[in-house]
């Protein structure tokens, strides 16, 4: 295996041993954060599980789910995740700053599209009276979907911040390490979304 082939993380190509090791520790720390976030999401999922069927005569999964919109959101988020990995590869293999920022912009646009579709869905829920205070089922659904949506919105801000840093400072080792962590966060959110569209929406209407 070549020196680069043993690179533990995509986007990391720091070129010297000490930097790799330090970055490795930071990334492990970030994994710890992600795992604590996973526990949060997992417990909100569990609460949602206990609330299935608790519609109190209000709107249920059939009224709440618009599968076409969910499919579009899924595609947009997966596309965003994929665009981000392309940006990481561009960074790792010195594709050039603009090349990388292009993919980052694509990832951000796609995620923005996701949020817009999600917002339209939520506004529709308000229209049909499916507000959080209507039933236990709806409270849990709003909590879970909005928790994920807020994470995506936070990720967008983070992406904007990274873009500024890259423009100002260039792709320094530290910024590469930050972008790598952001990538973990971004792919992690896509995994959570797999759980949401499967358990909340698909299993709801099945």
């Amino acid at each position, binding site marked *: 295996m070549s020196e680069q082939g043993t690179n533990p993380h995509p986007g990391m190509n720091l070129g010297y041993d000490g930097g790799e090791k330090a970055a490795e520790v930071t990334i492990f720390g970030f994994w710890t954060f992600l795992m604590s976030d996973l526990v949060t999401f997992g417990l909100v999922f569990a609460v949602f599980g206990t609330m299935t069927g608790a519609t109190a005569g209000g709107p249920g999964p059939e009224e709440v789910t618009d599968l076409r919109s969910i499919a579009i959101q899924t595609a947009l988020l997966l596309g965003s995740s994929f665009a981000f990995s392309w940006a990481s590869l561009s960074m790792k293999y010195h594709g050039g700053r603009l090349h990388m920022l292009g993919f980052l912009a694509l990832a951000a646009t796609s995620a923005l599209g996701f949020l817009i579709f999600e917002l339209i869905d939520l506004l529709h829920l308000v229209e049909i009276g499916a507000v959080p205070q209507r039933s236990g089922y709806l409270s849990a659904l709003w909590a879970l979907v909005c928790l994920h949506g807020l994470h995506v919105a936070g990720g967008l801000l983070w992406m904007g911040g990274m873009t500024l840093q890259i423009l100002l400072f260039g792709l320094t080792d530290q910024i590469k390490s930050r972008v790598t962590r952001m990538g973990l966060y971004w792919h992690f959110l896509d995994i959570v979304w797999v759980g949401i569209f499967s358990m909340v929406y698909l299993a709801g209407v*099945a």
Partner: protein
Amino acid sequence: MRDISDEERAERRQYTLGLILSIVLTAASFGIVILDVLPRGWVIPAIIVLALAQIVVHLRIFLHIDLTRQKREDLQLLLFTLLLLGIMAFGTLWILANLADRM
């Protein structure tokens, strides 16, 4: 156009494979629900299996969790978190379902 090294090409192929697998698994999940092809009791187990498969694909390809020595700590952290989450989430569902039964 810049040159693309073999290693980069291999990594691109890997990510593309991940994307294709994700699309196939997602489409299968949606297909099962929309086309109504499976008998009733099978739909939800099938959705769960497809979702788990997709999560494994994401972890392996996009988050680079594998069985090599370097990544073992990440993997152990993930597995321990899943153990904790299993106890808490499964416990919650179990106890509350039991209470609901008695109501």
